[in-house]
């Protein structure tokens, strides 16, 4: 089992480093900075940190004004609030108005497990992905957070950066070089490709080990950028392995699985099985148990892979 590291702490550290490297970076909070760890930036750069109170629509609009004035605002709150309560501000100003705002979505998926479905974000990727001009990035571990965050700052245009609340398995070391918009193979294989995003990448790797023991040679690919999707990499995997499984901590509708399916159905149709939450709200409970119960267990990935392989012609 890989070492576990708290993703939000890694985020806070990466944000402070960004503040040192780029004086245009400013950080906004809707009064949950000790939850998402943006308080670390506040301590380092109090004059570049703005807490607008529990007012998420105002959070995004103030960030928009800063962005139109040449700043690079990182707006922090819970993922579900950015993707639902503040959505109109995101659509009208960040996307249509091309405001260079970075939406830092804390507590992605069901990672705020004990707070329950009111606090889970299981539709955010679908919502954000449907907006023209939006970029959607989901890091898989703490190294990914540290390596991707400076790219988010340099990226021209709005970015939705979806993070995990909890300790997550350390998958990568310093040799990992992610690029926004580029997928990467993290395990070789020829029978099926398991495409994972966020925490589910680690579960895809576990599933690949189990599949190997039953003779299925599974490739594992990381897609951290769900939009713009690396369509070339997806089609290449479809062509080379003949079957795909997607795995995401999100509703089965509209997320990574949908994005991948849209690409292969146009370009190179192969069997695709989607692992995620089966279009329902979840409940309160321990994080790993919630993932297991609501369609995101390692065995769900394994079963999906078996079915995808069986469906190959």
């Amino acid at each position: 089992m890989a070492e576990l590291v708290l993703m939000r702490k890694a985020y806070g550290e990466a944000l402070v480093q960004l503040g040192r490297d780029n004086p245009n970076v400013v950080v906004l909070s809707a009064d949950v900075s000790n939850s998402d760890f943006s308080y670390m930036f506040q301590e380092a750069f109090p004059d570049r940190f703005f807490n607008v109170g529990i007012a998420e629509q105002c959070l995004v609009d103030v960030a928009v004004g800063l962005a139109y004035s040449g700043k690079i605002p990182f707006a922090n709150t819970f993922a579900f609030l950015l993707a639902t309560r503040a959505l109109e501000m995101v659509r009208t100003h960040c996307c249509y108005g091309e405001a260079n705002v970075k939406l830092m979505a804390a507590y992605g998926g069901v990672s705020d497990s004990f707070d329950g479905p009111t606090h889970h974000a299981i539709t955010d990727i679908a919502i954000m992905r449907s907006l023209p001009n939006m970029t959607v990035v989901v890091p898989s571990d703490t190294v990914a957070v540290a390596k991707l965050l400076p790219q988010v700052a340099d990226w021209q245009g709005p970015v939705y950066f979806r993070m995990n609340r909890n300790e997550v398995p350390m998958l990568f070391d310093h040799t990992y070089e992610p690029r926004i918009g580029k997928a990467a193979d993290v395990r070789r294989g020829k029978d099926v490709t398991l495409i994972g995003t966020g925490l589910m990448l680690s579960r895809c790797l576990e599933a690949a080990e189990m599949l190997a023991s039953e003779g299925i040679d599974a490739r594992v690919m990381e897609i951290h950028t769900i939009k713009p999707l690396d369509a070339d990499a997806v089609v290449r995997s479809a062509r080379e392995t003949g079957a795909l499984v997607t795995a995401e901590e999100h509703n089965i509708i509209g997320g990574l699985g949908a994005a991948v399916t849209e690409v292969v159905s146009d370009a190179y149709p192969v069997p695709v099985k989607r692992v995620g939450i089966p279009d329902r709200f979840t409940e309160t409970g321990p994080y790993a148990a919630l993932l297991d119960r609501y369609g995101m267990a390692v065995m769900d990935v394994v079963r999906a892979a078996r079915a995808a392989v069986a469906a190959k012609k």
Partner: protein
Amino acid sequence: MHYHSESLIRDLSAKAQSFRIHVLKMVYNAQSGHLGGAFSVAEILTALFFHHLRLDPLRPDWPERDRLLFSKGHACAMLYTAMAYRGFFPVEELMTFRQLDSRLQGHPDRVKLPGVEICAGPLGQGVAIGVGMALALRMDQPKPSAITAPSARASRARVYVVLGDGEINAGVVWEGAMAAAKYRLGNLAAILDYNGVQQTGAVADVMPMEPVAAKWEAFGWHVQEIDGHNMGEILSALDRADEVHARPSIIIAHTTKGKGVSFMEYDNRWHGMPPTKEQYERALAELEEGLKAWQN
């Protein structure tokens, strides 16, 4: 407070009235658009664009420009008209309003039309976006520029938000108002076009907002109340707002929806309805009569 001459006030008032005529033609031509709220805000926008704001139409992204955030985006026919006559784009382009391939979208698009500071139409967001701009301007602390507005004000760039009265129904207006007061944004001013009528009826019936002045005061803002069709009062109030330090400022401008056309005034049906040919001709005659009064 600056002295504003009678001839200045007369010239600006005539301009505002001539802009109403142009807006009427645009909306009649497009058979689509919002006349009532455009007519009520004519003097306010004219005062800003032709006297008070420090801006350069040839450099719409000039970092030291004053920011005009037209939050009541539906009334943009008047915004476009004032911008065109101020030199941001050719006046002839105004007749492309609401047509295919036009930069003059049904509601303002900052990407298509340089000089438009924010997209608007979904109401309520000018104040909060203005907070972000005012914070950024304060962080950057640009030195006072040698280029001054005609009002002779030579302070650093400021942010002006033009609001509608129905618009302040929206909660995010008050979220922004609280943030502006918290951060003591003396470089932010709002002008409320209080024409008393919104889409389906009187503001007082749809969602009673009174006491409006007391609400803004309670939120920590400096408040002035004026006649929003009286050019002299508008110019003086803008000057006064610039002298407010360490807190945001609002000018509550009492106006008339549909101002200048007798059968449109106070009537919510003219919020978003284009005129027929006969209505157009009657309205045009009334507005031209009103213009003569300023020109004599």
